[in-house]
């Protein structure tokens, strides 16, 4: 696990900084309604042609400057810096910075306007309070360089609107598997080898286009068809992840295939190692399957 270095100067603590919406940020897509989106939540209504406005406000609590060991006249000035990124931090899409005046009880608004066409998959906002200019006469623990981080916070949300979360396609099974080999099957699930891929890329569910009734029931969100679909998907993903040596301990990215595999495996089977799950799948298939059925709550669907 990566360790953060200890700053060589005093920093602000969480209780010194008040974010107006706590763990959440306000998000507005185009002219749509403002959404309050918590950390790790989902922004709905995103379209490439519309801008996305992300906002919050920050206030320093009364004791913040005392925490830094600063008096009101020693020359230190602070700045609020917000950076918005997308595609799992691959690209910066907007920045905002403003002074954070000493001793002011007013909240400082932050507003980032993002070009919707430049977003992919998620939005993250890194918010920092940094030193703009250091104290004139500080002690050894006074922050001494411009840009020194005194406090930081991070918020991330997935954006939705462009794609279904579970990628489902209807195909001709005769063409896919060869004539007659699986023509009466219903569901085929393909799981990619790379656990770091987004779930939409790493997991594809194929439905037999000849099974029109089943597809229509799914479209209507009928309980039986939906349960059957999820039971198949979970079973296939859990086994495939174990087979392909996905790690139960590694910190896979939010929204990734690996993270989803960890969640499903843990919630259905507890924190059992993949080797044990595979052994159960081979040696006690019925219990393996019934545990998944139980998680899906299959008995209440019929």
């Amino acid at each position, binding site marked *: 696990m990566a360790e953060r270095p200890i700053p060589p100067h005093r920093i602000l603590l969480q209780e010194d900084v008040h974010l107006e919406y706590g763990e959440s940020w306000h998000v507005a897509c185009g002219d749509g309604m403002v959404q309050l989106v918590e950390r790790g939540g989902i922004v709905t209504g995103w379209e490439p042609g519309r801008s996305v406005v992300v906002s919050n406000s920050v206030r320093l609590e009364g004791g913040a400057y005392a925490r830094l060991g600063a008096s009101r006249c020693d020359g230190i000035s602070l700045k609020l810096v917000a950076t918005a990124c997308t595609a799992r931090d691959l690209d910066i899409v907007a920045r905002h910075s403003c002074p954070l005046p000493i001793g002011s009880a007013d909240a400082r608004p932050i507003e980032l306007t993002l070009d919707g066409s430049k977003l992919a998959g998620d939005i993250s906002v890194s918010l920092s309070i940094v030193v703009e200019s250091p104290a004139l006469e500080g002690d050894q623990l006074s922050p001494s360089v411009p840009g020194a981080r005194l406090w930081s916070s991070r918020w991330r949300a997935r954006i939705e609107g462009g794609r279904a979360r579970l990628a489902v396609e209807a195909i001709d099974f005769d063409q896919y598997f060869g004539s007659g080999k699986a023509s009466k099957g219903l569901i085929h699930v393909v799981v990619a*080898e790379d656990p770091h891929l987004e779930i939409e*890329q790493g997991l594809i569910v194929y439905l037999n286009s000849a099974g029109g009734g089943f597809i229509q029931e799914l479209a209507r969100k009928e309980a039986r068809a939906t349960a059957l679909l999820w039971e198949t998907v979970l079973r296939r993903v859990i086994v495939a992840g174990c087979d392909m040596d996905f790690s139960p301990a590694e910190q896979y990215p939010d929204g990734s295939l690996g993270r989803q595999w960890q969640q499903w495996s843990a919630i259905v089977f507890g924190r059992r190692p993949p080797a044990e799950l595979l052994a159960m799948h081979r040696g006690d298939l019925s219990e393996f399957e019934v545990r998944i059925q139980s998680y899906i709550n299959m008995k209440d669907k019929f």
Partner: protein
Amino acid sequence: MSVRFPRLAAAKAERIIADRDGLSLRELEDLGLPELETQQFAPTGPPRVSAEYLLSVRERLSLFAREAGYPQRRELGRFDSTAAVYLAELDLPIGQVIRSDTWAWMTVFLVPHLVQWRWGKVDHCASISRYTGILQRNALGRLWFRAYVMREPGEAPWSTLQLVNEDAHVAILERTSISRDHRLARAIVSAWHESGRGEDALRDAMVRIRVQLLLRDVSELTDASLREVVLSAFR
């Protein structure tokens, strides 16, 4: 450029690639494009890209490969360099080309012969990550990304790009805490080039800079101050 590009999920691509196992470069080159009507696009947005446009991109990339010795593997760096600039100058829509599934479609259907030529061996297929991996690993996506990050404002946009070799690009671009800040990434390349030192020095400096980024926000520093921070990492 305001068009929608097709996408290909990795789970789907892996099967297609597995089915092609053993095809020669010539056979890969002769594979046609699939019907775009049957491909997956974002459901909303600008018009879909045309097959003619995609084929013109394939033609240009194939030309660069031939100039670099294709089908012989002679001047791979030359291909990387010219293809990176070409892809960046296409002005592709950022929100789409920063997604790995857009590049997965391009590598699987548009230029599979170039992926095999650039990353495969005579008796060994190119790694699946060169088709469906993260942007920085995709055979084409990584070229676009390096030009996107290293592009300088002004009249000599590719001056910094030309300073960096393959290993250095990997060292810088696979660290998103650095590559997302294009100004910082370019400052590192310039400082490394000025230092005249080898890749070990770059790797050491990258560690120091990443630690610095945890302690210090450099995004608001002036160019001169940023340069000082980066130079100090090479001392």
